[in-house]
C-alpha cells in the first residue's frame, strides 16, 4: 500500500497511487488512488487544476486494498480515478473532498504533464453518410466507463454522426442534451449504425475514417481493434484479416466496431456474431470491407479494478448437417469437423522424384479399403477425391487425408490445401492472397509453425485467392486449374499439415543454436566433412536413380516401337494375304468394270 493519509477526525482513509499525474493521451492525464470515508455525509471527490475542477469517478473495485484491511467490504470499492485535460503550461493539481458543509484537502502539488503539441489535421470534407453510434448502457454500468465512451464520441473528427442511447439514461448523463434517447437501435436515423460497447472507446478519427469507406457498394466496414487498459493506455492490438466468409464460419474476427448499413440490421440491438452473419448473408461478402487501422479501442479488464468479463460464444451461429462443432485452436474459435462419408474413395498421387519413402511416410494413415496411392497421375479417374503431394514428405498430421478429403467434398470447395512446413517447422506455404497491387503473396511464409503467437488467421479454415502446388485435394469432376470457377472456393485448412524434408530460406539463414556455435572450429570442420560425404553419397544415389529412370523410360519407348512395328507388319501381312486370296482374284473383272464406270 502507498502511504495512507489519515484524517482521523473525519475518519477518512486515502492513498494516491500516482503521486504525479499520468499522461494517457497527448491531451489527457489522470490520477488514481483509493478513498474511504466511513459514515460519510454526501460528498464529491474533485480535482482542481488551473481554476477548473473535474469530478473523480469513485467506487472502483480495489480488492487489493480490501485484502490489506482484512477483507473489510468497506474497502472493496474504494478506488477512484480523475481524468482531465492537460494544461498548456506546467501546473499542479489538488485533490479534495467536498461536502455541502466543507472541503477536506487530500493532496496538493500533484504535478501534471503539459499538453503535447498535436499534429494539425485538415478539416474533414462536408457531406458523407450519417452514422448513428448506438450505446447500450446496462444497469450498474460504471460511470467512468460510460463517460469515457461518450468522451471518445465527443472528440470525433466527423460531424455527421449521432449518439443513440438504448434503454435508460443514467442520472450522470442528464446534462448531455445532444444524446438521443431511443428505445431500440431501429430508431437510429443514420444510414449506417455502429455499436459501441459502453466499456470501449473509439479512436478520434474512427468515424471519419469509416465514413470515408462507406460508399454505395459497401454495407459493412470493420476496422482493427486497439486493446486499452482500464485507464486508457494502449495494450495489445487485434489486427483483423480481410473479410473471408469461410474463416467467419469458425471465428468472429469482425468483432466490435463495425459500421453496418442500417436497413440490413433488421431491428437487431447489437453486433453479435449472429447479427453479423445475417448482415453478411444479406449483403454478400463483396460488400464487406476491412479497414486495417486500429479505430476501435477495446478496454481490457483489470483483475484488480474491474475484470470486465466479456461473454465468449460457446458455439458459432452456423449449423450444418453432418458437421460437429468443437473448440478451435485458440480461444473464441471453433472447429467445424466434417467426416468423410462411408464409401468415399481417395486417391493419393505422389511424385517418383520425391524419393523412395513417400509411400512409407503415408503408410500409417492408409486404409487400403479407402485409399489408393499412385506414383504418377492415374490415367483414369476412378476415385472420389484426389490428393496430390508434390514435395518430398517427412511427416503429415494424423488427420491429413481425412481432413483434405472432407473439405474437398464440400460443394462450395473447389480445391483445398493445408499448411506446408519445412524440416525445421517453418511455413513454406499457407495459401496466397492478392495484395493491393494485385500480386499473389503468402504473408505467413517463413513463420515458425511452432511459435505460440502464430496469427489466429492461420488457425482456422479460410479461403484464399490461390495456392501453390505443395499439396492439394480436389474432388472428382473438378480440374485443379479451374477449381476456383463459379462459386467454388480455394480453401486452406489448418487441420492438414505436411512437413516436407526440405529447408526453406528462412531456416537456412537461421542463427545456429547456441550449443552448435560453442563447438570449436575442428568440430565444425569434421561436421562439414561428414555432411559433404553424405551429400556425395546422396548425389551418387540420385544419379543412379536418374539413370535407372532414364533407362527404364528408353526401354519403354523401344518396347512401344517394337509393338507398333509388329502391329504394322501384321497389317501389311493381312493386305498381302488378301491380295493373294482366291476371292480377290475372282473379283478382278468386277473391279475392272467398276473402274470403267467411275471413269478411271
Amino acid at each position, binding site marked *: 500500500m502507498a502511504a495512507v493519509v489519515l484524517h482521523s477526525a473525519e475518519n477518512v482513509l486515502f492513498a494516491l497511487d500516482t503521486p504525479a499525474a499520468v499522461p494517457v493521451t497527448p491531451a489527457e492525464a489522470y490520477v488514481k488512488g483509493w478513498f474511504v470515508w466511513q459514515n460519510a455525509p454526501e460528498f464529491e471527490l474533485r480535482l482542481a487544476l488551473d481554476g477548473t475542477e473535474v469530478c473523480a469517478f469513485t467506487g472502483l473495485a480495489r480488492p487489493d486494498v480490501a485484502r490489506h484491511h482484512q477483507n473489510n*467490504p468497506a474497502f472493496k470499492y474504494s478506488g477512484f480515478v480523475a481524468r482531465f485535460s492537460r494544461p498548456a503550461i506546467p501546473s499542479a493539481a489538488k485533490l479534495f473532498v467536498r461536502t455541502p458543509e466543507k472541503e477536506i484537502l487530500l493532496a496538493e502539488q500533484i504535478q501534471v504533464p503539459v499538453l503535447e503539441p498535436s499534429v494539425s489535421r485538415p478539416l474533414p470534407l462536408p457531406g458523407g453518410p450519417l452514422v448513428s453510434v448506438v450505446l447500450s448502457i446496462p444497469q450498474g454500468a460504471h460511470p467512468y466507463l460510460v463517460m469515457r465512451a461518450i468522451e471518445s464520441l465527443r472528440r470525433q473528427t466527423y460531424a455527421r454522426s449521432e449518439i443513440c442511447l438504448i434503454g435508460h439514461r443514467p442520472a450522470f448523463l442528464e446534462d448531455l442534451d445532444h444524446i438521443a434517447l431511443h428505445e431500440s437501435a431501429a430508431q437510429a436515423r443514420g444510414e449506417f449504425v455502429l455499436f459501441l460497447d459502453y466499456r470501449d472507446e473509439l479512436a478520434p478519427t474512427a468515424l471519419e475514417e469509416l465514413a470515408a469507406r462507406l460508399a454505395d457498394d459497401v454495407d459493412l466496414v470493420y476496422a482493427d481493434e486497439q486493446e486499452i487498459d482500464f485507464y486508457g493506455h494502449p495494450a495489445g492490438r487485434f489486427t483483423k484479416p480481410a473479410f473471408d466468409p469461410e474463416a467467419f464460419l469458425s471465428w468472429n474476427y469482425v468483432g466490435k466496431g463495425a459500421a453496418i448499413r442500417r436497413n440490413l440490421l433488421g431491428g437487431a440491438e447489437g453486433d453479435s456474431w449472429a447479427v453479423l452473419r445475417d448482415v453478411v448473408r444479406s449483403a454478400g461478402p463483396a460488400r464487406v470491407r476491412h479497414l486495417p487501422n486500429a479505430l476501435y479501442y477495446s478496454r481490457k479488464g483489470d483483475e484488480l479494478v474491474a475484470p470486465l468479463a466479456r461473454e465468449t460464444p460457446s458455439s458459432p451461429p452456423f449449423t450444418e448437417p453432418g458437421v460437429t462443432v468443437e*473448440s478451435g485452436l485458440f480461444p473464441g474459435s471453433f472447429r467445424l469437423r466434417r467426416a468423410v462419408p462411408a464409401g468415399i474413395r481417395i486417391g493419393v498421387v505422389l511424385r517418383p522424384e520425391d524419393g*523412395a519413402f513417400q509411400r*512409407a511416410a503415408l503408410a500409417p494413415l492408409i486404409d487400403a479399403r479407402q485409399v489408393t496411392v499412385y506414383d504418377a497421375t492415374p490415367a483414369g479417374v476412378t476415385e472420389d477425391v484426389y490428393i496430390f503431394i508434390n514435395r518430398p514428405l517427412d511427416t503429415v498430421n494424423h488427420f491429413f487425408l481425412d481432413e483434405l478429403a472432407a473439405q474437398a467434398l464440400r460443394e462450395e470447395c473447389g480445391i483445398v490445401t493445408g499448411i506446408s512446413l519445412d524440416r525445421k*517447422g517453418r511455413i513454406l506455404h499457407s495459401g496466397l492472397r492478392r495484395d493491393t497491387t494485385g500480386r499473389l503473396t503468402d504473408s505467413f511464409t517463413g513463420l515458425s509453425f511452432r511459435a*505460440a503467437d502464430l496469427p489466429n488467421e492461420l488457425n482456422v479454415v479460410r479461403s484464399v485467392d490461390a495456392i501453390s502446388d505443395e499439396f492439394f485435394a480436389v474432388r472428382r469432376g473438378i480440374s485443379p486449374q479451374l477449381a476456383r470457377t463459379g462459386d467454388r472456393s480455394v480453401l486452406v485448412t*489448418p487441420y492438414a499439415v505436411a512437413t516436407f*524434408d526440405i529447408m526453406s530460406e528462412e531456416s537456412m539463414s537461421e542463427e545456429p543454436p547456441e550449443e552448435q556455435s560453442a563447438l570449436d572450429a575442428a568440430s565444425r570442420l569434421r561436421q562439414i566433412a561428414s555432411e559433404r560425404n553424405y551429400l556425395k553419397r546422396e548425389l551418387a544415389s540420385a544419379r543412379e536413380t536418374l539413370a535407372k529412370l532414364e533407362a527404364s523410360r528408353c526401354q519403354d519407348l523401344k518396347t512401344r516401337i517394337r509393338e507398333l512395328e509388329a502391329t504394322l507388319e501384321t497389317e501389311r501381312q493381312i493386305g498381302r494375304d488378301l491380295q493373294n486370296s482366291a476371292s480377290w482374284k475372282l473379283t478382278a473383272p468386277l473391279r475392272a468394270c467398276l473402274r470403267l464406270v467411275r471413269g478411271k
Partner: protein
Amino acid sequence: MNDQPLPAVTTVRVAPSDITASNLACQSAWKPGHDLLLLDPDAEISQDFLAEMQAVLHLHERHAAVSPLAVRETGIFERISPLLPRYSRAPAALPACVLIKAEIIERLGFFDEIFHSFHAALDDFVCRINRRGYSSVTANRTYALFDRQNDPSEPDRDLLLYRYPEYEHKFAFYDNFERDPVEQFAILSAPHRPRILYDLFHLTPSHSGTSDFGLNLLRELWKQADGEFELFVGTHLAERFFMHELAGYRIYDDAARADEMFDLAFKPSQPLSWTELRRLDRLAPRVSFTLLDLIGVRCDYLNSPARQFVLQRAAKLSDYVFALSAFAASDFNAFFAESVPFHTIHLGTNYGRTPDELLPGEHVLVVGNNFAHKGVTEALAYLGTQPDIVVLGGKPEPAASHVRWLASGDVSRQHMRDLFSRARVVVYPSYYEGFGLPVIDALALGKPVIVLDSAVNRELDASFANRNLHRIATLSALPGVLDQLLRTEPTPAPEMRRWPDVAAEYLNAFRMLFRRDWDVGKMRERRAFLRALAASD
C-alpha cells in the same frame, strides 16, 4: 449415538431470495426442542429422507446440520450412493434441504438478515456453527435433485469473506482434496460414450523414443477407437512443437478448461512429478500410465528423491499400469521391492511397410545418445577406424572424427528412415533399455542388429524370433560379430509387430477397464495421498 428418542421436527418452506421472509417463517413456526427442517419448495427430495437425515444428524453431538446428497438425476444417486459412506463432512449445507439440530438453534439463533439470499445466510450459519466446533454433514443415503449453483452475490460473498477469512479457502480445499472422488465424478456414472484423456503434457520440444511412442499409439488408438470412445489429447495449446502431427485432435488444455472430466486419464509415459499425478487424479476416476523404464531413478546421477517416490507411488495408486517390457516391469518391482501387477505390451514399428524401404546396406549405424548407459562411446572405441560408420543420437564427440555423427533431434523423420534403410548393420550398444525402439525398427527393415545380451534383449529375441538379432556378451565382441555380419547376407525381413497391433492391445485393456466398476478404494487412497502431500506443502 444415544438411545434417546429423536426430537420432533418443524418444517419451514424457505423463500430462497428473501432471507427476511425465511427468517420470519422460521421464527414463527419453530418450537423449542424441535429440529428445524428448511425446504426449498422447488426441490425434489428422495422419499423417507427425513428419517435418515435425522438419524445422521443425531449420530454425533457435533453434527449440527445435515443435508441430502445433491444430484442431477435419481439414476446417479442410485449408482453412487452405495459407494459413499453413510455421511460425509461438507463445508456448506444445501439450501434446497437442510435439517438443523434443535440445540443449535437454541444456542446460536436463526439467520443473519444482513445477507440478500437464504443461500448466503445459510453459508454464514454454517461458518458460525463451525467456529464453535460443529459440522455440517451430508447424508449420502438421501438425495435432493438440485442443479442450481446460485453462488452468493458479490456483496454477500465479500461480507462472508470479511467475517470468515477461511470461507473461500475451505471450499477450494474441499473441492480439491476432501470431497469424496466418487461424488466428484458422480456425473460420469450416467450412461455415455467413454471419454479418454490421452495425456501428452510430458512431451518436451524434441523428438525422442517417448514422443514416437506417444504419437504412434495415439494415431492408431484414434483410428481404432473413433466412435467407441471420445478421445482428447492433453497438451498445452501454446506449446506447439508437435502440433504439426497433433492438428485435428480435440485438445484438452488444463489452462483453459479446468472443469473437464474423463472416464480414464491415460499417460503413455510415467508420471515424473506430483503435478502430473495430480492432474490425472483430478480429471478422471480411472488412472493409467505406461512404465517406460527405470533408468532415471536407477542411476543416481539422474535420480531425485521426489522422482523416485512419485514413480513408486504412481504405479501403486493407478488403476492399470502398462509396461513396455516384462523386463521394465520386473525392474520396477525389483528396485522398489514391490509387486505391482504390470501389463506388458511391446511396442511396434512403422518401418518396412513398403518395398521401397528395403534398400541394400551401405554403412554401419550406431544408435544411442551421449548418456553413459547408451554405450556409444565404448562401442566406437571397439569399432576403431571401421569405415562408413554413422552415429545417430546425442552430440558428436571429439574422439570420433572419423564417423558421421547426427544428433537425432536434428534429423528429419525421412532422413532417419533413410539412415536405417541404408544401414548394412545396426549396432545398439545400450546397457539399459525399457524396450529399444531402434531394434524393432531395424529388424523390420531386415537389418542385422547387434545388441548386448541383456534381459530386455533376450525378451525381444524370444518375442520376435528374428534371426537378425545378434546378442553379444560384451562390447569387446563387437568387432568380430560385425566383421562376420558384414561378410554374410542378412535374413530377409519378416513381418514385424505394428503399431495397430499395439493399439489393439491397449484398447482391449481400456475396454476391460471400462467394464470394471470404479476402484473406489484406490480412488480414495490416491486422493488421500495427494491431500497429504498438499497439506505438507
